[in-house]
């Protein structure tokens, strides 16, 4: 048996023919519409805008969102989402997934907490791939400490006047709306609200953050708000109750990132095994050297553990009993697995792995954004420790 992206996936008894059909067709979509161009898009730091409607048509953008707003739920379950995350990770260009799927963090606040009118105005256009929405939490002065944000929204009649800035915002250059964390009240978590800010509002400006370690294909941006007037009806949820909106958003984001990281680790495994089976040193294939065999086995061992843990967390979500502490630790499990596998795969590839244009080299550069974004490893452990009541 050869060890590759598919064979290295442990059996999952929840998967049916429908899931397999989705994986097969989604993979075809990716292999036709994305794979051949992925490298070039990453080098160019840009994804063509036409990709969004195509991804909408195949069902990728709408998956898991209510049908009433153009989403797809009928006949689906969480395993479809896991498959989507895996298949997008298989591309090996993290910036494409980050940018194409950024509505996965920007839209849920609107869907879960927004008014009916807001949902109607935003969701169908986003899920059709015609418009774009990002999530704006992080600021130059506050990242992990979400409750410490200082962008203000001061009430003036039936508008808020927003001042401040957001940074590292994925999809920020393209976004038509940003689900934005703002301070409407006093200090701390109790003074934070979520506000839907349209990017065509006066006083809004943005600059691209192009010189990144990885995720080049993704349009990361810094956003500036200079007396931006936003209607009060754009409040997402209640005033000063935004912290809860942000926190409930995190479980989904972390599950998606963990699923993606596990699959990226599998890409590293696949590339390493393929190379080790061919490359000869000292008269033997790399795969015949015990040191290399152990590296491969250890990669698989960590991947197995992450998969099993992922499945348990997905099951707990499916049964309506998600455990945020366990999900936070899953994210750490996945980023450590990814870090290990990217490192070992790079070692096995040797010099050729250091050359741009292969998946391992890129994944290696994209490990850290996964270990920091969406809640850093340190913050995840802290959250878990608090939740476990230590």
């Amino acid at each position, binding site marked *: 048996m050869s060890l590759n992206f598919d064979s290295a996936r442990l059996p999952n008894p929840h998967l049916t023919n*429908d899931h397999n059909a*989705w994986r097969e067709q989604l993979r075809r979509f990716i292999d036709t519409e994305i794979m051949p161009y992925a490298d070039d898009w990453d080098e160019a730091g840009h994804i063509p805008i036409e990709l969004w409607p195509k991804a909408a048509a*195949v*069902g990728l953008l709408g*998956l898991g969102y209510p049908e009433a707003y153009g989403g797809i739920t009928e006949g689906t379950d969480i395993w479809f989402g896991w498959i989507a995350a895996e298949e997008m990770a298989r591309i090996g260009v993290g910036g494409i997934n980050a940018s194409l799927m950024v509505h996965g963090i920007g839209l849920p606040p609107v869907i879960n907490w927004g008014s009916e009118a807001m949902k109607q105005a935003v969701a169908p256009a986003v899920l059709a791939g015609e418009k774009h929405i990002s999530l704006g939490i992080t600021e130059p002065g506050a990242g992990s400490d979400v409750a410490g944000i200082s962008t203000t929204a001061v009430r003036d009649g039936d508008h808020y006047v927003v001042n401040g800035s957001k940074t590292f915002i994925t999809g920020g250059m393209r976004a038509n709306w940003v689900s934005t964390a703002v301070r409407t009240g006093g200090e701390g978590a109790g003074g934070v609200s979520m506000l839907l800010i349209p990017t065509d509002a006066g006083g809004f400006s943005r600059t691209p953050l192009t010189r990144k370690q990885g995720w080049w294909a993704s349009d990361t941006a810094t956003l500036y708000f200079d007396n931006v007037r936003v209607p009060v009806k754009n409040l997402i949820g209640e005033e000063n109750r935004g912290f809860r909106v942000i926190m409930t958003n995190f479980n989904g984001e972390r599950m998606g990132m963990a699923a993606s990281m596990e699959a990226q680790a599998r890409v590293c495994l696949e590339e390493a095994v393929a190379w080790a089976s061919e490359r000869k040193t000292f008269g033997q294939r790399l795969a015949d050297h015990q040191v290399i065999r152990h590296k491969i086995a250890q990669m698989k061992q960590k991947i197995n553990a992450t998969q099993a843990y992922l499945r348990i967390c997905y099951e707990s979500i499916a049964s309506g009993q998600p455990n945020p502490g366990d999900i936070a630790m899953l994210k750490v499990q996945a980023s450590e697995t990814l870090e290990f596998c990217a490192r070992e795969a790079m070692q096995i590839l040797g010099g050729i792995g250091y050359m741009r244009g292969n998946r391992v080299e890129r994944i290696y550069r994209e490990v850290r954004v996964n270990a920091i974004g969406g809640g850093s490893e340190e913050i995840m452990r802290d959250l878990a420790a608090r939740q476990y009541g230590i």
Partner: protein
Amino acid sequence: MKVLVAVKRVVDYNVKVRAKADGSDVDLNNVKMAINPFCEIAVEEAVRLKEAGVASEVVVVSVGEKSCQEQIRTALALGADRGIQVETEGAVEPLVVAKLLKGVVEKEQPQLVILGKQSIDGDNNQTGQMLGALANMAQGTFASEVKVDGDAVSVTREVDGGLQTVKLKLPAIVTTDLRLNEPRYASLPNIMKAKKKQLDVFSPADLGVEVKSHLTQLRVEPPAERQAGIKVASVDELVDKLKNEAKVI
């Protein structure tokens, strides 16, 4: 116009097939299965005819065990309207498949039947032709272009010397070559809709066909392993090896 498309469940083309240790057959244990690529092209062509308003209904048929319903569902997700499974057990040879398909043709009375030119497992390249003979229908094989015009269909065929175009009177049979079209991928909503489409199951007896085998498979063995290449030092050495070892010049 009704179009009937035949699809076969085969080992996915990405899979490296292995012979069983005892040499009795190919090892299908835990192997990924898919629609035969040529059949997929056939489905695509039929769906395009429907989208162009030429075909009114696309019926997809597969001969095989219950598991081949998976491939019928895929074809339904790609745009076919309803499915038929003719339930058989084990391997069925081309002549029997052709007879069973003839039974379906008699039931359905399609104007056009599209099949893959061959399946990538057996590589027989027989079923379409046999069906043409049994059903007494004109046939255009190895199609790289199909144009329906009134009660006729023009089929451009990929033959050794180039392209040959034949005009057939409907009802007719077309078998697809690789360059006829590029099959689409199915969307998630269409995968879900396919589950609700009609899928009828017939037995060979329902079609008045007796499943017999006329062929016995003796042995399945992998092709000889290719030897590694060598580097030659000079043109003279190359010429010498081509002459005396490879004996090609």
